[in-house]
């Protein structure tokens, strides 16, 4: 019980190199506050984010995944974020159908000038994750007896 009150969600962010990552930088340089729950991976484009990355992150025990890229029309590679949008849309809908809470996969468009928006998005997403609680999707319940004892779980 004591642990529960201290629990902080772990959020994995895939930020596009051209917009959202620079947006996160701007949030930093303009001293905007955002939760330290996010771990950021820089990707060349939001179109680089494979659905496998999202599943792997959830499998490793991240409580949520945020994919963020340039606004539609602003992609450095012209069409990367449009493709990301289709892929993430079907991934999100499919995961929800399977029973993953919708809060666990989030997406946003954050441009390089939107430091404020970035901090808002991360705050929001983190808040959402706090509401749904820890990710226990892939915890061992059935297979093997290792169940609760060695829940080293996360990355």
């Amino acid at each position: 019980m004591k642990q529960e009150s201290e629990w902080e969600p772990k959020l994995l962010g895939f930020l596009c190199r051209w917009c959202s990552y620079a947006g996160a930088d701007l949030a930093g340089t303009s001293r905007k506050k955002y939760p330290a729950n996010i771990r950021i991976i820089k990707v060349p484009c939001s179109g680089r984010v494979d659905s496998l990355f999202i599943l792997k992150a959830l499998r490793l025990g991240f409580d949520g995944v945020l994919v963020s890229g340039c606004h539609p029309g602003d992609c450095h590679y012209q069409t990367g974020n449009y493709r990301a949008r289709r892929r993430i849309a079907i991934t999100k809908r499919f995961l929800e159908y399977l029973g993953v809470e919708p809060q666990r996969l989030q997406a946003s468009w954050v441009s390089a000038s939107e430091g404020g928006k970035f901090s808002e998005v991360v705050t929001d997403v983190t808040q959402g994750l706090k509401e749904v609680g820890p990710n226990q999707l892939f915890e061992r319940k059935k297979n093997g007896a290792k169940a609760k004892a060695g829940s080293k779980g996360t990355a």
Partner: protein
Amino acid sequence: MEQKLRQEAKALLEQGKVDWIIGFAPGSLKFTTTPLITQDKDDAEQLVINPFITNNLANFLTEIKGRVGIVAKGCESRSIVSLIQDNKVARENLVILAVPCPGIIDLAKIERLVGKDRDELDDITRDGDRVSVKVDGKKKEFPIAQVLFDHCLACELPTPQEYDIILGEPRLPAPELKVSGQSIASLKEMTPAERWASWENELSRCIRCYACRNVCPACFCQRCFVEETEPQWTLPMPHWQDNLIFQIIRNIHVAGRCTDCGECERVCPVNIPLRSLTREMYDIVGELFQFKSGMDKDALPLMVHYEQEEAEDFFR
């Protein structure tokens, strides 16, 4: 119909219009059929069309070089069109022999209804919308909706749209047979946690034989992500977690290619209801992008195309 198919197939091979014929031949077990892939014109005599031609023959197209004459039911034709969209096969290399399909009989359902193994049945005949099974000298009749495969009951295209030679009269989908989505509807009534638990339960049976992948015409990757070792995305051991990730990613990979032909569910040796996954993905793609796989050979594949404004609602 069968005679016409044999003549046409033989003629195609004789005239050199195709190098290969892909069709169905009688299987080694009662009531079964097996895919026949041949270059020999005499083999054309073995070709059959009956209510048991289950396989999706489009699966073999990506492995065969040269011009191919292929027997196609509605579902095959959609898979073929999908392969054409993806540039996996060229339309000019194909001669499609269209079979207007009245639905395929699921032997497992008959076994369950009759309570006997398929070896013990004497005969199964179809007459319109009744199927009669002869067993121990007695005749039992069933309405067709009870014995067809689930995916046949939800069939949207019994007669191929894309074909060169048609064998028999075109058929329209029978609206009264549409009963698909029953298990999906019951899944959707559950809470998310219950749904996830039910998938955990189903997928813990999976033995990772990859039959679902190997039988799928839409799964044509040279190297599958589950076999990659650097990085190793999933463990090769059949833990339910990795089994589930395999199925999720497989469904995402074939989104917009999957025509809901139901082969994955049919071949599953541990009876995982895989069509509850494929059908839902098919519906999601239809709802979000108004995309129906395998209908228009000139359409761009789902993940190649995009619209300026679509599927925006969940983006912050």
